[in-house]
């Protein structure tokens, strides 16, 4: 088995038919299992696109993405969904919680796709882990930004994935909330998870084992 849990080979992504935008232009990288990596760079240079391709949320125009030794670029839609439910957890800048569900139901919904059991016990453990047991039955609209992101973190861990992909997880938080969320992310990393964060924030990048710098859709530094 490879030491690298994530690998990309000459990854390219082009948007548009008439007017083409080359978001990624031949990105190859390797991320070791259990590492904490950051993808940095200014806006519009392909960081989020790279993260989405790694997570199987989108398909590359050409090139390959390997999760462990599986080339996910060749998987069909159902297999890709299964891979996401089993191996990958996502955290987004704007939390993306389901508004009509409570905090704990948001976590349980993720478990529905892998049929994790006992779902209720595991959801309670996770919500306790992010320090929000008292907010379990609160809806997202009743939570602060930091609290919502901690719930999103717990949701990402619902099916105990090996990889956590986070797109600007603290980009929409005040400094205290940012600190709280980062503490949780670091403790998750210490527990052995592979973490990849897209960020503008140098304080976060400074804590990473690996930093990938993107410019104009290319990897310009490591």
């Amino acid at each position, binding site marked *: 088995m490879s030491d690298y849990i994530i690998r990309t080979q000459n990854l390219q992504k082009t948007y548009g038919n008439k007017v083409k935008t080359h978001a990624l232009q031949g990105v190859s990288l390797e991320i070791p299992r259990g590492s904490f990596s950051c993808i940095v760079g200014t806006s519009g240079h392909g960081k989020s696109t790279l993260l989405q391709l790694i997570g199987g949320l*989108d398909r590359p125009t050409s090139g390959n993405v390997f999760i462990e030794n599986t080339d996910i670029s060749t998987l069909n839609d159902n297999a890709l969904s299964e891979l996401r439910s089993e191996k990958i957890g996502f955290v987004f800048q704007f939390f993306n*919680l389901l508004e009509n569900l409570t905090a704990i139901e948001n976590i349980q919904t993720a478990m529905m*796709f892998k049929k994790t059991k006992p779902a209720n016990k595991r959801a309670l453990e996770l919500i306790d882990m992010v320090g929000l047991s008292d907010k379990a039955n609160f809806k997202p609209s009743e939570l602060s930004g930091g609290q919502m992101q901690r719930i999103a973190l717990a*949701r990402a861990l619902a099916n105990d994935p090996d990889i956590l992909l986070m797109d600007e997880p603290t980009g929409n938080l005040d400094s205290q909330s940012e600190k709280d969320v980062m503490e949780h992310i670091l403790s998750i990393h210490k527990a052995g998870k592979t973490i990849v964060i897209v960020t503008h924030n140098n304080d976060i990048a400074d804590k990473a084992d690996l930093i990938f710098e993107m410019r104009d859709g290319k990897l310009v530094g490591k």
Partner: protein
Amino acid sequence: MNILKLVSKNILRRKGRFVFTLLGITIGMAAFVALLSMGNNLRSEVSHQADALGANLIVMARADCPFINMAVLTGDHLPESIPREIVGQIAAIDGITGAVPYLTLASSVQETPVTLIGILPDEMKAHREWSVAEGIYFADVNEQSIIIGNSISVRFEMGVGDVITLRGQDYPIVAVLDETNSNDDIAIFMPLNTAQEVFGLGDYVSFIAVTVDDVTQTDRYISAITNIANLSVSTNEELLNSVLMILGSLEITLQLIASVALIAAAFGIINTMMTAIYERRREIGILRAMGGKSNVIFRVFILESGLYGLLGGLLGFAVGFVVSRLAAPLIQQNEFVAVLGTPDTAVTFSFSLLFIVLGLSVLISIVSGLYPAFKASRLTPMEAIRNV
């Protein structure tokens, strides 16, 4: 957490839209239940009344269409082509055991249409095996009085000693018949002579109910009767079929109205689901990102449509049932129903109707939800999330 819980939470998220969409299918199904069940009930009542006249053959004037026959039975139309002496001639035919004349006339009690039937008192009492609940039955063929059916007595709270006004003249009620569970319960009766006199008619009758001793010889009897006069002779079944033909056209009209209501409800569901998909692209993207397969998204939206159908069907059945119960008395005021129906033409609760309604409602809703659900399931995670 499971898909059903997720769906129910989704449906209740936008309460206004939920209520209005539900109203659409509820009204559609209520119209379906009320209109069709009233039509069906009328049909079953008519079938039940197939033997109402207690005759094997009905002799009427020749008519061009069943509507005229119906008008004769209800008293709306009075043919003057069956002179009374024909009754005796028919009764004299070998094998005919009875020929009872009816003179049906449209009248009213307390401004409600009621059929008045002129009868030969003794013949009719024997033919219909009537018994008297209250009062004394006609003693004379020329008696200037009225006997009323049991339901008329109950409905209008009338009894012996009360009077009914016909053509400006009061006629006392001398008897109330025992319940017969037939259309006799909702009619009023006068001696034939008196009825002809009150309405200024000649010695004619509307139709003649004929009983025979051998029903396998029907063709022979019909031939014998038509040899006496140029009349229409129908078996009970033929008469029933002509009535059912009229009901058939009524039912088609009701079915068309119900269909339009259901189609409108179906489009309401499609519209709601398409709007829901547009509004919930982000949610679809999140579910897909968490590992939800496209068939899970499809099931979420199909279940949502089906749930609308189930709830709409239940409510529609309840509303339709209540509406048909409320409408029944109004329908009974129609002479057509009055002469054919028993006192209760209202819809009766039926589990089979409930299951049919629920099945149809869920089926329509699911079919309506297929295209929106397919569209939702085709969205890729990033298509959904990127557009937020």
